[in-house]
């Protein structure tokens, strides 16, 4: 079943028509990648889903429930977590505080959840007291993802996971995503074709505010044509 559906969604920002009728579906339990050039509207789509940039028209269904009119802070509470493009780890807060802030039910991160996070990200156990501003790029990415795992959410939206990261870290993130995929549906925005097609099951390609192509990743895995046409690679 589709955990997320968008039907003819339009979004305007400051008068500019950014999303011009986005149609997409994300299957539950799978990892879906949203591909496309810079400026295609991928991040805007993510923000529209999260309600941070309200849509002008169209329907967004999460687990069959329409969410396009909900207020931004109500949406995560339905079970959607966002790892934003810039990570947005709070630099004045410690890593531990960053995680604690994300907890929706209760005061502290549940023990089992913490163990789960440390299983996926062993290096985190040394980072708890470090201030967000003192983290390296890879560490910040780790914390951003960990923060999104604090609540047991059904859908995890990740915007540009591998941006600016060293290849060796990108490699380890493949395993991370594979692990997370076991329990959570993932919607990944990526420009790194190799990385994305390595772990995702379904794909969507966006161009100029619309989804122009979609299907199973296996169909396009080695397709150089698609890569150059839509991703400018």
């Amino acid at each position: 079943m589709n955990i997320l559906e968008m039907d003819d969604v339009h979004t305007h920002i400051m008068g500019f028509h950014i999303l011009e009728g986005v149609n997409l579906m994300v299957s539950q339990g799978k990892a879906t990648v949203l591909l496309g050039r810079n400026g295609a509207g991928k991040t805007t789509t993510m923000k529209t889903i999260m309600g941070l940039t309200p849509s002008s028209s169209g329907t967004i269904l999460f687990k069959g429930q329409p969410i396009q009119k909900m207020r931004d802070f109500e949406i995560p509470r339905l079970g959607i977590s966002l790892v934003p493009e810039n990570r947005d780890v709070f630099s004045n807060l410690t890593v531990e505080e960053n995680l604690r802030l994300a907890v929706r039910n209760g005061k502290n991160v549940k023990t089992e959840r913490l163990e789960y996070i440390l299983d996926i990200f062993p290096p985190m156990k040394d980072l708890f007291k470090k201030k967000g501003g003192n983290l390296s790029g890879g560490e910040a990415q780790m914390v951003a993802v960990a923060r999104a795992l604090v609540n047991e959410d059904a859908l995890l939206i990740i915007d540009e996971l591998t941006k600016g990261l060293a290849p060796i870290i990108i490699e380890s993130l493949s395993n991370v995503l594979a692990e997370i995929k076991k329990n959570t549906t993932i919607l990944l925005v990526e420009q790194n074709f190799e990385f994305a097609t390595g772990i995702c099951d379904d794909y969507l390609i966006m161009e100029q505010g619309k989804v122009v192509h979609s299907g199973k990743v296996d169909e396009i895995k080695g397709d150089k044509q698609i890569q150059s046409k839509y991703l400018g690679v």
Partner: protein
Amino acid sequence: MYSPELYLNLALNALSVGMLYFLICSGFSLVFGLLRVLNFAHGSLIMWGAYLGVFFTRALSSFSGALILTAVIIGILGVLIEFFLIRRLYGNELFQLLLTFGLIFILDEVVKLIWGPGVIPVEKPEFLQGSVMIYGEPFTLYRLFILATGAIVCVSIYLLLKKTKLGLIIRAGIENKEMVRALGVNINKVFTLVCGMGGFLGGVAGFVLGGFSGLSPEMGFGQLINILVIVVVGGLGSFIGTAVAAIILGLSESFLGFFLPEFAMIGIFIVMFVVLSIKPSGLFGGE
């Protein structure tokens, strides 16, 4: 030459004045830090705190009771202002500015309506009259009271920010409101709460100020100028900057007031121009 005891006395006076300024600015800084709204009406809120403070002190027999009541009422006023007025203008910074600016007129005029346009001298409560001798120089009890109140407020704010979940949200929100929302936190409620806290702090500041310098319908705007200079010197958005700048101003007023009284009033402007020429974003400002 002047004795070291005199300098100590001046320094203590400076500290108490600085503390008073800190109290005055704290509400403003807090609101600006999180909401990014310059509440020009903060000076007027403080003035209301002063007038109400004196009124309640005379009406009730309890000094501390009056203090708390005043602070709570101004706090509620802060909540109402955010909820009914400022909230309607989110996204439009210019109009938020103009709005709080317009509130000055309303708040100031109502004070004049109720209490008249003249200056009202205020008697300090008996237990705070008189002074204590420190190394042979007198230090008034009221200044000691200011120091104590300031210290309590400082510590309370620190504890709130560092040890509570609300404080966590505020600290995160000051940095990145959108991400806080993306985590599912209703930060709008926190905005309202913070405006309430700003009002509360303003009420405390006004209460203390009233006993210190008396009442006058001009005091609201006068304090606004002080607030703006301090906040600009310290760096907009930095709590520490505000505290430091408040102390600097206290020092400037205290020492200039003694050695060069002619310049006491422009002292703050000079400090401001000097600091801004060296560091345009203020001492601790990072914009």
